[in-house]
């Protein structure tokens, strides 16, 4: 989709790396990213990782949303509602959870999965996962782009702790875990035994 990007800057860097955050959201939503059904989604996060595996294999694993909690730490579960719709339960600070229904807005075998949250989402969000062949036989370049509306208010403040800054970190860590799982068949842990894993020690 990058060929359809609206380039107002003489700059090939992706909009997510722009120092002007408002312009970045405008550029992304004007060209390749849906806006969530409700709310004022103004926070854009994108992370890219190169994975030494074929595009089709990575796409297939990701497209089965029930697989996602295996490498997404904050995602408690994803219930598949039908071929396009799914229900997400995501851990929030203080043992709470935030939930939403997501609908697939674009799907291209081996290349793109895009979604947006439906009405009533705790955290309105949209995004897309792009799979592209890497240059020089290095496998596949996977880019996760997420646009969301950070929660406001008292509850929001708590949730914001997770959702204001964390999505960037979480996206990066989740993509690393996805890469580990796909390249090595397992997710690395520095723990010595199950007790330390349960205590979250690394």
């Amino acid at each position, binding site marked *: 989709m990058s060929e359809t990007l609206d380039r107002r800057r003489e700059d090939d860097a992706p909009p997510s790396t722009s120092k002007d955050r408002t312009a970045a959201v405008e550029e992304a939503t004007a060209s390749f990213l849906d806006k969530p059904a409700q709310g004022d989604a103004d926070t854009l996060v994108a992370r890219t990782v190169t994975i030494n595996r074929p595009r089709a294999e990575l796409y297939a694993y990701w497209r089965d949303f029930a697989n996602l909690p295996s490498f997404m730490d904050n995602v408690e579960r994803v219930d598949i509602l039908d071929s396009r719709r799914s229900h997400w339960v995501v851990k929030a600070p203080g043992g709470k959870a935030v939930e939403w229904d997501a609908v697939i807005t674009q799907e291209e075998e081996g290349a793109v999965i895009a979604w947006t949250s439906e009405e009533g989402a705790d955290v309105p969000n949209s995004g897309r996962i792009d799979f592209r062949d890497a240059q020089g036989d290095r496998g596949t370049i996977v880019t996760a782009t997420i646009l969301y509306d950070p929660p406001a208010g008292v509850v929001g403040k708590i949730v914001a702790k997770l959702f204001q800054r964390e999505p960037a970190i979480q996206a990066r860590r989740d993509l690393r875990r996805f890469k580990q799982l796909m*390249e090595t068949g397992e997710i690395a842990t520095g723990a010595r035994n199950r007790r330390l894993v349960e205590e979250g020690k690394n």
Partner: protein
Amino acid sequence: MRALTWHGKHDVRVETVDDPEILNPRDAIIRITSTAICGSDLHLYDGYIPTMQAGDILGHEFMGEVVETGPKSTLKKGQRVVVPFTISCGSCYHCGKHQYSACDNGLPADNQDIAQTLYGQPMSGLFGYSHMTGGYSGGQAEYVRVPFSDVGPIVVPDGIDDEKVLFLSDILPTGWMAAENADIEPGDTVAVWGCGPVGLFAVQSAFLMGAERVIAIDHFPRRLELAKRFGAETINFEESAVYEALLEMTGGIGPDACIDSVGLEAHGFFVDNVIDQLKASTFLGTDRPHAIRQAILACRKGGRVSMPAVYGGFVDKFPLGAFMEKGLTLKTGQTHVQHYMPGLLNAIIEDKIDTTFLISHRLPLEEAAEGYRMFHDDQNEVTKVVLKPDWAKTAA
């Protein structure tokens, strides 16, 4: 099991901790038969390395017997293996290029953040070397969990003593790679700063790669003696001015290649060294890089600088001007251990490389804390301490 644990600066203890378990399909559990204290363990002992936690098990030079394997391990119970100190997956792009210490997947995802911030990209995991390198429990213990056991450990034939092959885990490949990074040409003079284990192996390796002369620099007489045993000329920096001596000994040209195997542990009363130490102890964040400065100034024009020494952060007064003007080449990096192990194991079997000369002390694991103190306090007499977890059994 019993294990050597870190509790703070100059505070390590042998304690009873819970055993390791198989957690991932490619894991194996090794019963340790021999494990050494590395010079870089002294960086932890001295409190120079951040992200250590009380109770962390140290040790990244170890070998032993396979006692348990995960379903995807290719090892068999009862095999004797030497384990590389770098934890590398074998399946990422970098491992495919044999740049094992640059492995993308050796570090747990969460632990990659610090390395990414400090270095730009995360590196491989390391055993027993802080949480920045993965928080993996080390091998100064009775047992250890070894991830990616299908690509890391090398199986050692029966009938070869532990002490002949133990150093395949780190210091022998590190010394070898240091010499390889110096791109030695026939007729070259190679200067080696630091006659610790890595420096001494670099001396041996440089000769094997065709160096005509090797000049070894240190201030511990016993270590300089060891370097001489392998044919090196020596400079004691407490008695002679290193830069002047190197120029005089090389006809005013300077060494063709310079190897800094000192790094963080640069001793000696140099003014910039004292400033560095002061800054380091007040967390103003600087390594203590005297050797690398001297190497850059002494190296001949168009020469090569190889830096196996461990540096963790930032360096002040790096002579970038001299480096540029003289057109030097610098090669460095954590060792790609897995790449070098098979060839070096053969060299040991064929008696081309001797490693046992290094060992000055052997102790039971129970006396590991004393081993650290000895190694720290007397680096002249103590060149290498090897710990034996099953001391009672082997002594009997």
